[in-house]
């Protein structure tokens, strides 16, 4: 397949965005998922709902609010101005923030499910073996939730790669900065360059299938064996 330099740039940008988004989400989503899995607080449904919002909201709505929030009159935009860092809309940084919000449930939910599936007595056993709460988290919860981490990373990555609406709203279509593969395809179609669109679309198709296939091969949903 012959990709143009713009194609390659879009592919590279997409991979960068998806990798960084996944990394950040695992880093910050894990404590959130852990808290949600352990809390008995009555505020839990509130936070579960907030985390799930990006699943149901149209990307244009997410993008719109982020644009307002990050824009010159938005709270984040003004803060960035005061700090002299520059504005987030139409930048890679803005795209990264938007992707993190857009893909949040795809990382937090598998992690939360994995943590909730761990038998409470594992933590109790660890506690009676002198493991502090933090120690228990890293030596019992994380290893036992490993399938959840794999699912979270793969879904977070793949979902970010497939992002389109939010990118258009927040990032626009700036070559080398915010033009990811999905936007590039859109451009080709707009310009009626179907064969170019085909190349990238096929790439996305194959990529998505391979990623999901690998996920379900490596991480089969476990059937509980009957108790011996």
């Amino acid at each position, binding site marked *: 397949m012959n990709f143009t330099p713009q194609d390659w740039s879009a592919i590279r940008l997409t991979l960068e965005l998806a990798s960084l988004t996944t990394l950040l989400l695992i880093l910050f989503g894990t404590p959130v998922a852990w808290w949600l899995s352990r809390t008995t607080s009555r505020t839990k449904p509130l936070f579960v709902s907030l985390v799930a919002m990006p699943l149901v909201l149209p990307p244009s709505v997410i993008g719109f609010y982020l644009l307002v929030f990050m824009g010159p009159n938005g709270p984040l935009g003004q803060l960035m101005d005061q700090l002299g860092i520059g504005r987030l809309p139409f930048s890679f940084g803005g795209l990264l923030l938007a992707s993190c919000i857009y893909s949040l449930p795809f990382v937090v939910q598998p992690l939360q499910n994995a943590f909730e599936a761990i038998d409470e007595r594992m933590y109790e056993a660890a506690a*009676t073996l002198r493991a502090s709460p933090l*120690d228990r988290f890293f030596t019992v919860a994380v290893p036992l939730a490993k399938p959840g981490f794999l699912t979270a990373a793969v879904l977070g990555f793949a979902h970010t790669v497939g992002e389109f609406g939010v990118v258009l709203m927040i990032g626009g279509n700036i070559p080398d900065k915010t033009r990811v593969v999905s936007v590039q395809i859109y451009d080709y179609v707009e310009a009626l360059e179907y064969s170019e669109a085909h190349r990238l679309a096929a790439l996305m198709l194959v990529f998505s299938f391979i990623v999901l296939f690998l996920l379900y091969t490596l991480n089969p949903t476990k059937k509980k064996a009957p108790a*011996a």
Partner: protein
Amino acid sequence: MIEADFHLALPGFSLETHIVLPSRGVTALFGPSGSGKSTLLRCIAGLLKPQYGKLIVNGEVWQDASHFMPPHRRPVGMVFQDAALFPHLSVQQNLDYGAKRSRSKASGTDNLIELLGISHLLQRRTDALSGGEKQRVGIARALFSAPKMLLLDEPLAALDAQRKAELLPYLDQLHQQLDIPVVYVSHAPEEVARLADYIVQLGEGRVIRSGGAIDIFPALLHPLSQEEGVFTLLVGTIELHDTNDYLTQVSIGAHRLWVRYINRPIGSQVRLRLLARDVSLSLDPGVRESSILNTLQTEIATLEETAPGRTLVRLTLNEGPALLSRITTRSARALRLQPGQQVYAQIKGVAPME
């Protein structure tokens, strides 16, 4: 000495127990399910934080009104009902988990692996172990953390009869070799009779009675007297062995009983179990023409019809512990049995518990 005082209120259940336990030997927390014995054990481990709690172990305050030592700071070893081994670690790594984190080093760990018969399992994954093996690894893991107290939460309950029988000798061994207090939760009278030195009987979150196992055991059985398997626990001393007939003579006070050969030196203590249905009563000692080996002269303390047509007779052995006999009400009437009467107890079967 271990003093534990816990007040815990949960929806539909409350625990109010104040107990003092000896700092050596095995204490059994005994009672039916829902009696609060596991809850009490979890309070001792610090896994449950009651509204009010006081726990003093050999002078060290683990918990009082103003201070709560979290579970990972308490030097206890806990064995869970189905072992709760870490599935992501090998057997050896499970053992090391507590050992690495413990401030004091456990001594004799090699000996322990030998004693529990798990040396061939060390490199295995935990899901490849049988129930009994898991439980033995669970016990070793708890002891590897060099605990000052060992807590066992119904370690045999999840096992079938054969596995139970397989694990009990290991528990016997531990009982003899450990010099830390052991708190053992169980609802099975046989386990308690075999292992306990001290018994706390619980019911509905309250202590019903507590005391030395031998003194308290007869009283424990009262609520169980309906059961077919009701038995008497006796502690005796080995007097002599008859290797020709493969028999051992055990003395209980002034009485002597022949039991099947026990492979232990003369002078050692043994626990004997006498099923009430294996003890029959006679008014004369004429058992010369009988296959029964053991006849004891006793006095009737009480008679009670525990089921239609079935009478449970409580007998005293020279002011000593009670002996239970289950006979038919018809026999009791035919022999005109009454409290205070001298009778001969013919013992058909008696089994050593070790």
